[in-house]
C-alpha cells in the first residue's frame, strides 16, 4: 500500500463529499437536528394536543339521567361536561357529536339511598383519544361519587374509613440517579446511533462507487498509477470518516437534547431529573461504534460497488437497512441481556453493550470481546471490498 497515494485519494474524496448536498444532509444535518426536533418538536405538539383535549368540555349524552338527577346536576355544574341531546347515542358517538354516553340503571339514586347497589354504563370509542379521555373523566366522577357514598354509609354504621385499607403499600426507588438517567436513554440511544452510523455511511458509499461508475470517473482513476488497494482504502477511509462524524454528532446532539429535554419534562410536573452521562460511558460508546462503523462502511462499499448506477445501489442498500434495524432494536427489549453467545452476534452485541454502558452495568470482558469480534467482522468485510475492487466483472458490470 502506498500511504501517500491513499492520502491523496482520501483528501480528494473528503473534499468532494463535503461538496455533495445529499451527503451533507444525511451525515451532518440529520444527526444534529433529529433529536431536538423529535424531543422538543414532537414532544411539544403532543403535550399541546393533550392539554387542549383535556381543557375542552366533554360532550356527553345521558341515558336515564332522570334516575340520577343529583349526580347529573353536580356533573354539569362546572365547564368540564356539556350535555348533548341525541336520539341515537351510538350513531352520535360514531359521528363524533358526543365523546361518550352514560346510562344509569332504573332507579339509580333511589336504590343507592336505600343502601342497595346500582349500575352505570359508560359507552365510548376506544379508538378515539378524546372518547377514551371522556371515559376516564366520567369514571373518575363516578368513583368520587361512590367514595362519598361509601364514606356516608360507613359513618352511619360508625365504622372507621381506614378499615378499607388495612395494608398501606409503599414503594421506594433505590436505583442510583445515574442509572435512572441512563435507563431512559439506554433504551433508544444505542438503536438510534447504530441506525445513524449506517445512514451516515450510506450516501458517501453509494456516491464513491456506483455514483462514480455512472459518471464514468471510476475508469479515469483506474488508469492512474494507483493500485486498486490504494483506491479501495482511500474510499473506505472516506466512508468511515462520514460514519464516525455522524456518530459523534448524533451522540453529542442527543446528550445535549436529553439534558435540556429532561429539565423541561421536570418543569411539566414530573420529578426533576438532571441529566449527565459519565464521560467514560461516552468514550466507551464511541469506541464500540468504531469497528461497527468500519463494518458498515465496507459492507456498504461492497454492495454499492456491485451496482451499475446510483439508483440500483439505493435499491440494494434499502433492504440492508432492515438487516441493521432489526438487530439494533434489541436494545428496546428489556429482558435480553448480554451473554457469551450474544457477544458474537454483530449489531445485537453493540446495541446491548451500548445499553449496558449507559446503564453503568457493563462488564469489561464483554466490551473487549465485542470490540475484537466486531473488528474481525469488519476486517473480513474490508477484505471482501478489496477483492471486489480487483474484479473486472464487478467494476465493468454491464
Amino acid at each position: 500500500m502506498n500511504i501517500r497515494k491513499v492520502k491523496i485519494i482520501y483528501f480528494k474524496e473528503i473534499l468532494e463529499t463535503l461538496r455533495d448536498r445529499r451527503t451533507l444532509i444525511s451525515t451532518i444535518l440529520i444527526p444534529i437536528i433529529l433529536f431536538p426536533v423529535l424531543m422538543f418538536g414532537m414532544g411539544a405538539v403532543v403535550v399541546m394536543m393533550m392539554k387542549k383535549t383535556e381543557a375542552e368540555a366533554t360532550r356527553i349524552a345521558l341515558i336515564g339521567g332522570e334516575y340520577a338527577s343529583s349526580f347529573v346536576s353536580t356533573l354539569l355544574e362546572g365547564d368540564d361536561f356539556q350535555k348533548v341531546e341525541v336520539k341515537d347515542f351510538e350513531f352520535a358517538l360514531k359521528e363524533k357529536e358526543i365523546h361518550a354516553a352514560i346510562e344509569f340503571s332504573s332507579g339509580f339514586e333511589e336504590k343507592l339511598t336505600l343502601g342497595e347497589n346500582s349500575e352505570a354504563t359508560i359507552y365510548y370509542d376506544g379508538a378515539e383519544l378524546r372518547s377514551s379521555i371522556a371515559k376516564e373523566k366520567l369514571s373518575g366522577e363516578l368513583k368520587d361519587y361512590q367514595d362519598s357514598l361509601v364514606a356516608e354509609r360507613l359513618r352511619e354504621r360508625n365504622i372507621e374509613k381506614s378499615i378499607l385499607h388495612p395494608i398501606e403499600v409503599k414503594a421506594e426507588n433505590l436505583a442510583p440517579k445515574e442509572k435512572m438517567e441512563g435507563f431512559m436513554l439506554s433504551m433508544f440511544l444505542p438503536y438510534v446511533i447504530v441506525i445513524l452510523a449506517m445512514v451516515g455511511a450510506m450516501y458517501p458509499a453509494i456516491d464513491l462507487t456506483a455514483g462514480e461508475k455512472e459518471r464514468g470517473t471510476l475508469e479515469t482513476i483506474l488508469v492512474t498509477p494507483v493500485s486498486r488497494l490504494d483506491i479501495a482504502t482511500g474510499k473506505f477511509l472516506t466512508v468511515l470518516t462520514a460514519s464516525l462524524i455522524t456518530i459523534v454528532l448524533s451522540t453529542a446532539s442527543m446528550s445535549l437534547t436529553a439534558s435540556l429535554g429532561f429539565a423541561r419534562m421536570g418543569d411539566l410536573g414530573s420529578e426533576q431529573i438532571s441529566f449527565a452521562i459519565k464521560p467514560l460511558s461516552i468514550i466507551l460508546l464511541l469506541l464500540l461504534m468504531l469497528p461497527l462503523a468500519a463494518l458498515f462502511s465496507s459492507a456498504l462499499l461492497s454492495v454499492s460497488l456491485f451496482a451499475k448506477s446510483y439508483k440500483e445501489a439505493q435499491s440494494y442498500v434499502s433492504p440492508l437497512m432492515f438487516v441493521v434495524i432489526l438487530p439494533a432494536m434489541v436494545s428496546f427489549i428489556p429482558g435480553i441481556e448480554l451473554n457469551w453467545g450474544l457477544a458474537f452476534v454483530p449489531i445485537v452485541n453493540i446495541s446491548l453493550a451500548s445499553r449496558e454502558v449507559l446503564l453503568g452495568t457493563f462488564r469489561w470482558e464483554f466490551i473487549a470481546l465485542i470490540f475484537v469480534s466486531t473488528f474481525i467482522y469488519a476486517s473480513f468485510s474490508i477484505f471482501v471490498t478489496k477483492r471486489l475492487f480487483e474484479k473486472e466483472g464487478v467494476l465493468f458490470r454491464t
Partner: protein
Amino acid sequence: MIVTTNLTKIFHDKKRGEIRAVDSVNIECKPGRVYGLLGLNGAGKTTLMRILSTILKPTSGSAKVAGYDIITEAEKVKEKIGFLSSDTGLYQRLTAEETVSYFGRLNGMEQNMLTQRVEEIFDRFDMNQFRGRRVGKLSTGMKQKISIARTFINDPEVLILDEPTIGLDVVTSRSIIHFIKESKQSGKCILFSTHVMWEAQKLCDDIAIIHKGKILEVGTLEQLQAKTGLADLDDIFIKVVGE
C-alpha cells in the same frame, strides 16, 4: 512502444456464451506515429485499449507498453500512458484546477513541479478563464479540454485515445485532432480508435481494421489502397469487414 503478442480477451456471458472480444491481436505502434484502430461498435476497440491501459487483464497473450509488461508491471505502464475515452468522466464537484492537480499528484508529481506543469497546461489549452469553476458547471468543450489536460499532466510517452471525438461539436473535435497532431510531432506514440473514417484518413500513419475481435488488415493508407484497389477508406473498410 506498444507491442502486443496474440493478445486475447474472452468474456463469458450467460445468454451469449463465450465472447472473444479481442482475438489473438498483434499490433505494433511506434513513437512519432498515430496508429488508428478502425472498427464498428462492439468490434473490440475499447476492450483492447482497456487491456493496454491495464484496466482489464488479458485472458491470454501479452503486451508491452513503453517497454513495460502490462501484467507484471502494470503500475509502470500507467505512469507512462495517457488514457482518454468517452467513458473517462471527470469529478463534477472539483474545479478544473483541482482536477488536473489531483491527477498530477496521483502520478507522483512533487508540488513544485506540479504547480509549474499546471500553469503550463492551463496556458497551453487556454483554460485559465475557467480554472476555478466546478467541472459540473462547464460546457462539454471545456470539460473535454480538462480531460485532455488530465491525460497530459504527466507528459506521457504513450497516448491511448478511445474515440476521443465521439459526441463532440466541430470546434471541440478539431481541437482534439490538433492536439493529436502536436503530440505526434513531439514524438509520442499514439493509439487512436475511431469509427469516423475521415478522421482516420486525416490523422493515422498506420491503420488497423478490427472486426469481431480480430485484426483483419494492417497497413498505411497507401498500402491498404493498393491491396484493395479502392481509394476511399470507407470503401476499403466495408470491403475488408465484408458487411
